[in-house]
Each structure stands twice: as C-alpha cells, then as structure tokens.
C-alpha cells in the first residue's frame, strides 16, 4: 500500500465522519439563535448530536456519502495518471471499510457493483500551479441536496428577472423557495453567474471549497451574498423546512464570462451535512497539514 493511498483513505475517512470546524460553528450559532422549545430547535439539537456521534464513532455523518469529488492543485510535472489510479483504489478501500456507502450505480443497467468506482466516479479535477505544493481537497456531495440545485436562463419572464444583478437575486431566491427543506436544510448555496451550462454548475460547486465565514473579494458579489443570506433567513423555511430562523448557513457566489447570447445562473445546494476536507501532502505523499 502506497503512502499516497494511505493518505487518501484517511482523507476520505475524515471527510465522511467529521464536519469541518467552520460548518460546525455555523450550526451551533444557528442552534443558539433558534427559538427555544420549537421543532426547529430540536432539529438542530439532533443535527448537533449526530455530528458528535459520527466523529466519535468514526462513522459516516450521513448514510448518503454522496458524489466523490477531488480537487487537486499540483506542480508542473505531477503524475496525474498515478494519482487518479490511486484515488480510485483508495475509494474502493474506503468503501470496504465503511467510510463510504456503496453508492454508485450504473446508469444503464441499474447495477451497483459496490466499489463506488466507474465512469465519472470518482471525479478528479486537476489544476497545475507554479508552487511545489500538492493540495488535495475532497467534497462528498449528497444526492438529496443535489436534486434541489437549479439552473436559470435569464431573462425569466415568469420571475420578472432581467439580465442584471437584480435578476440574479430573484432567481437565486426562487431556488431557495423551491428547495424548501428538501435538500436537508439549513443549506449552503454555491452560485455561478455566467459560464455555459456545464461550467456554470462546475464553478457553482467549487464555491463550496470556500469556508462559511470567508468574504467575497469582489464587493458587488459580497453584497449579493450577504443580501441573499439575510433575505433567505427571513423567509421562515427553517431547518428541514420545519419553519424557523435559519434557512441558509451561507451563500457563495462567483462570476464567469458568458456568451452574449446566454446568461445562466447556476445554483448548487449543499445540505447541512457539508462534507469537505483537504490536505497538503509532503513530497512523500504523507499528510502534512489539514486544510479546514
């Protein structure tokens, strides 16, 4: 067993069983803000207990261990083929150990071979950089919340949304309304304004690599993020859609260039069981540092 394989199995274990600190903090704050004695408060209490129990037992936080998405930042000359092969073996091993559920189905035959490996599974995104650092981030993205994601094409007559920031605001809030609690809220939104149908969703998901508390360096987008967070939390949808004060824990928005002919707003929804972790690997592929 190679060191890289060990490191990746450990990355998967920790991602599946332990929620990152920033998310846990946001959940605790929401619990304190919720009205005492409400079903929203008790939902948060169960969520909090679940987070503790999963960590303590080193078991998946949620049984849907989601789509497995790796983001790798690597130096020039990095062997991507070996990395990807090792990642696939690590996923199979982590599944055997129970860190991941047997969660990947052949779309044509409906068969689940129990390995979590197949066409498009897991997904690995590589990005070269000039530094010598190897940075591997992992996201486990659940199905229930993926199902409430949405892509809008502006203008939208129905929502009276034009091709401007106010139009973006309208469709993003519509996505929150339509999702209600079905994506296991409170959720986090990742949004991309622009791009094409594929890159729009792609970039929207990458927003989940940002921490809950970070602020957008672009002032216009930052203002939109804060506005949507505040407005969504005034709607009273609450955890699980039970009604309550916290509908969203965070909103993260980016923009990508678009064609003059199209204007997409792509919205990904992440459930409270927000599983993301990352590591810096040493030259020997040992875990040097945890990222979140």
């Amino acid at each position: 067993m190679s060191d890289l394989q060990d490191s990746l199995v450990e990355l998967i274990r920790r991602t599946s069983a332990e929620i990152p600190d920033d998310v846990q903090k946001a959940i605790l704050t929401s619990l304190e803000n919720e009205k005492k004695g409400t079903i929203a408060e008790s939902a948060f209490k169960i969520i909090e207990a679940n987070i503790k129990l999963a960590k303590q037992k080193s078991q998946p936080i949620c049984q849907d261990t989601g789509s497995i998405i790796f983001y790798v930042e690597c130096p020039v000359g990095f062997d991507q083929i070996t990395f990807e092969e090792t990642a696939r073996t690590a996923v199979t091993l982590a599944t055997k150990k129970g860190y991941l559920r047997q969660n990947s189905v052949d779309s044509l035959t409906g068969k689940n071979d129990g390995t979590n490996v197949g066409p498009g599974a897991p997904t690995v995104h590589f990005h070269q950089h000039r530094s010598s650092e190897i940075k591997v981030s992992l996201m486990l993205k659940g199905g229930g919340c993926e199902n409430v994601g949405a892509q809008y094409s502006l203008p939208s007559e129905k929502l009276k949304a034009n091709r401007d920031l106010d139009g973006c605001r309208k469709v993003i809030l519509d996505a929150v309304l339509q999702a209600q609690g079905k994506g296991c809220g409170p959720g986090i939104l990742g949004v991309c304004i622009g791009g094409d149908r594929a890159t729009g969703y792609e970039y929207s998901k990458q927003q989940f690599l940002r921490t809950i508390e970070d602020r957008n360096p672009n002032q216009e987008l930052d203002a939109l993020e804060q506005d949507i967070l505040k407005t969504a939390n005034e709607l009273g949808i609450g955890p699980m859609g039970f009604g309550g004060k916290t509908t969203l824990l965070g909103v993260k928005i980016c923009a990508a260039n678009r064609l003059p002919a199209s204007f997409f707003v792509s919205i990904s929804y992440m459930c409270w069981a927000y599983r993301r972790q990352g590591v810096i690997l040493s030259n020997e592929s040992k875990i040097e540092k945890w990222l979140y």
Partner: protein
Amino acid sequence: MTHLTTPITEEKIRALKVGDAVEITGTLFTGRDAVHKYLHEGGTLPEGVSFKDGIIYHCGPVVIKDEEGKWKVTAAGPTTSIREEPYQGHIIKEFGLRGVIGKGGMGDRTLAANKEFGCVYLHAIGGAAQVLAECIKSVRNVYFLEKFGSPEAIWELEVENFPVVVTMDSHGGSLHQEVFNNSQAELAKRL
C-alpha cells in the same frame, strides 16, 4: 412531546396535529421504492409481516452482521419520500398503516389517504443517520433480502424513542404546504 407505542390506534393518530414532536417506541418496517412498487402492483406481504396499525419507514439502512452473526444497523436516516407518492395512498388503505416516516414530505394523494384512513406522515431529521441508528435497539427480522437487495428489503426494526415530527396530519394539515405558502408570501415582500 408525545410518545407513541406500536401498534397505534386510530384515535391516537387522529389526536396528532401538524408540528407535534413525537417519539416512537416499538416496531418499524422499512420500505422504499421496490417494496412500494411491488405492493402497489398487487404483491402480498411476506408471512409474519403485518402493517396493520403499524408504521413504514422510508429508509435504506446500512446493516452489518456483528461477530456473533447478529444484524446491526450502523446508519439509518430517512430517504426522500416523494418518490413513493404514486403508491403510498393505496398502501395506507390496503394494509392499514397508521404512520409513514420519511423526509421532505409527500403530496395531495397521501394527504387525502391520511384523512380518509387515519394515518400521519412523520418527518425524521434528514442526514441524522447516526442518531437515528442509536434509536434502533435490534433487528427483529428481514424480508425480501434476496429479492430486492439490502437497502430495498423490508427490515423489521425494534426502536426506542425514535424522534419525528408530524408534518402531515389526518385532518388535511400539511406543514410543508403551510411553510411554502408563508415563505412565498414573505419572499414576495422582498423582491
């Protein structure tokens, strides 16, 4: 907090209202897509299983065999219920269910069956796989394991203080509809 023990009488179900927190002790039967489709198409329950005055749980649990060969549930959160909407009303009627546990809520046909036959929809906390697994004290039996595979089988589970919230009662009330309408109105004020 209301405590319910299975089997449950119609009277107890009729007393429940949207928004009530409930803890269940007794027996739950899991059932998801395959079981619902099968029963809807006229399939019969295996011998020894009765849903009468009982509860079905939309869940595909992760179950392992421990060293002594006993089944043990290691994760057991709810799955999205709306997929069973085409079948649920019929199954409530035919098999006498008093409760359906899942997540995300269901539609008008289930709501109508709740009202007509005295049943409620109970919402468990989505994602709380570990907390809910802790409430499962033992696996009494499993049916259709070969036929449907583990997640789709009927698992007969003994539970203690299993926490849920009534989100669709037997009087036509739906918390999902209520929250949707209110949030839609609130949003309209802010656009």
